[in-house]
């Protein structure tokens, strides 16, 4: 991507590039959102393009999860608009948004704890198009996370943290989603397990799945993402490529304190 196009406003980029190989999948424009009187997001504009991992980086409690919850319809934004594949999502119910192909691997996994691993995966394939392809998608998930196949009849609540994360991502893959938003995949996991999860995420992206990755860890984001947004205190403070982020020690120490 050229410098000029990167520095242009995302909306302009989006209208120029729609239909090309790296077209825009998700577009968030001037989004304000929060809980009650408390405003968490104060005018966010980001764009997720096809064919790569887009990173959303920022410290905890600064609105990353709120942004994802707005996109998937779990909370209603106060202002602004969200478009997915050119289709307006703002104000829609989460089930409608999921049916458009926007998949979310939520923070804390939100598994169905009392249900078996198999039932959790099948819940991911609830929508009719995914239901028709559930066998093929199960194979795909098992290829990515063989551990899940061994635990098929075990209830999701008894899995280890890493297995829960695998199940949560696996459930997201069962849905034939056209964009997967993954919220802090490394949260609370041991380094070795984080490594496994990231191998899987990169493999998914290589297979052509567009991913919006929410992370706190600069190293992880710099390693796998193409485009990176830095979200701090409800605003996008910086955007650029992962390589630029890596070389910008001042930026990292200002916003991420490391």
């Amino acid at each position: 991507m050229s410098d000029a196009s990167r520095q242009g406003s995302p909306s302009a980029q989006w209208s120029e590039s729609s239909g090309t190989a790296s077209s825009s999948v998700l577009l968030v424009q001037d989004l304000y959102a929060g809980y009650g009187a408390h405003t968490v997001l104060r005018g966010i504009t980001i764009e997720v393009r096809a064919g790569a991992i887009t990173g959303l980086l920022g410290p905890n409690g600064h609105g990353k999860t709120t942004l994802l919850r707005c996109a998937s319809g779990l909370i209603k934004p106060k202002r602004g608009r969200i478009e997915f594949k050119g289709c307006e999502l703002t104000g829609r119910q989460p089930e409608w948004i999921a049916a458009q192909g926007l998949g979310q691997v939520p923070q804390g996994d939100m598994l169905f704890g009392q249900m078996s691993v198999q039932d959790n995966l099948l819940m991911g394939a609830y929508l009719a198009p995914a239901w028709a392809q559930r066998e093929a998608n199960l194979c795909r998930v098992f290829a990515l996370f063989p551990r899940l196949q061994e635990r098929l009849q075990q209830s999701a609540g008894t899995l280890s943290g890493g297995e829960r994360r695998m199940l949560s991502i696996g459930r997201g893959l069962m849905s034939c989603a056209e964009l997967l938003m993954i919220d802090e995949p490394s949260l609370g996991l041991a380094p070795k397990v984080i490594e496994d999860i990231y191998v899987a995420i990169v493999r998914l992206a290589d297979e052509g799945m567009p991913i919006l990755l929410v992370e706190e860890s600069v190293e992880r984001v710099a390693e796998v993402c193409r485009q990176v947004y830095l979200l701090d205190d409800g605003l996008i403070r910086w955007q650029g490529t992962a390589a630029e982020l890596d070389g910008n020690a001042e930026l990292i120490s200002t916003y991420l304190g490391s």
Partner: protein
Amino acid sequence: MQDLLQVLVSGLTLAAMYALSAVGLSLCWGSMNVLNMAHGAIMVVGGYVCYSAATFLGSGGPASFAMALAAGAAMGALLYLALVRPLRQRKGFETLIIIASFGLGLIIENLILKTYGAYPIAQPIALEGGWEFEQVFVPYQNAVVLASSSLILIVLALFLGKTRTGRAIRATSISAPAAQLQGVPVRRIYLLVMMLSGSLAAASGVLLSTLTTLAPTMGYDPMLKAFIVCVAAGLGNASGALFVALLLGVFEAAVGFYLGVRFGFSFLLALVILSLIWRPSGLFGGKDLQRL
């Protein structure tokens, strides 16, 4: 030995009816925190619809029963659309819906009273007679009640356990937002659960009326017992409710047989109170729920 078998016959029959309505109540609470006080009224509707179908339309037992199930589902849908949906987002929903559904139940029961009168009516589809084995008497109707409730519960368990929609019902009751993220239309699931629960209430009402008689107030006692079963099992746990219903049905029949029928209910309450002291959230209880 004969005594024990006789107790089992009447206890299991009681249990089967408790189970049908307790499972229905439990489904509603489990998926949307609705304590449906119109459950008894829906039992009454089921009983009278079955009676009317058999008497005025001349339909046979199974057809009349099916019509009662359909009427129960319709009542469940009415309850959802008229009360649950408009109140769902309101503060204090759990309390509001108890009072609102109690009101709806009163209206339904009084409409039935006005239409059919207060006198008890015999349920025409009930069978007479029975088998006698070694001094144990098994009325045909008890066998019908047992068989049909078991069949209904097995079909329900298969539906909830194995089908795409049944799985979505379970998922919604565990976490409605997580189910929505998978594309589950949770409001349609709520409607479906209320209809299922209404059908179960109607089924239980018909079966009850075949063993006793039809009366506009016949729903109160079984509804109370179904609530007791649900509380003892842990609210919202349908399979737990089934187990506790079996236990309490047989227990009540045993106390009734050995000590006298008038002690049955008080001993049942005593047992439930003791079990709640031991496990305050019910034998199988202990979960919080997020409702949308």
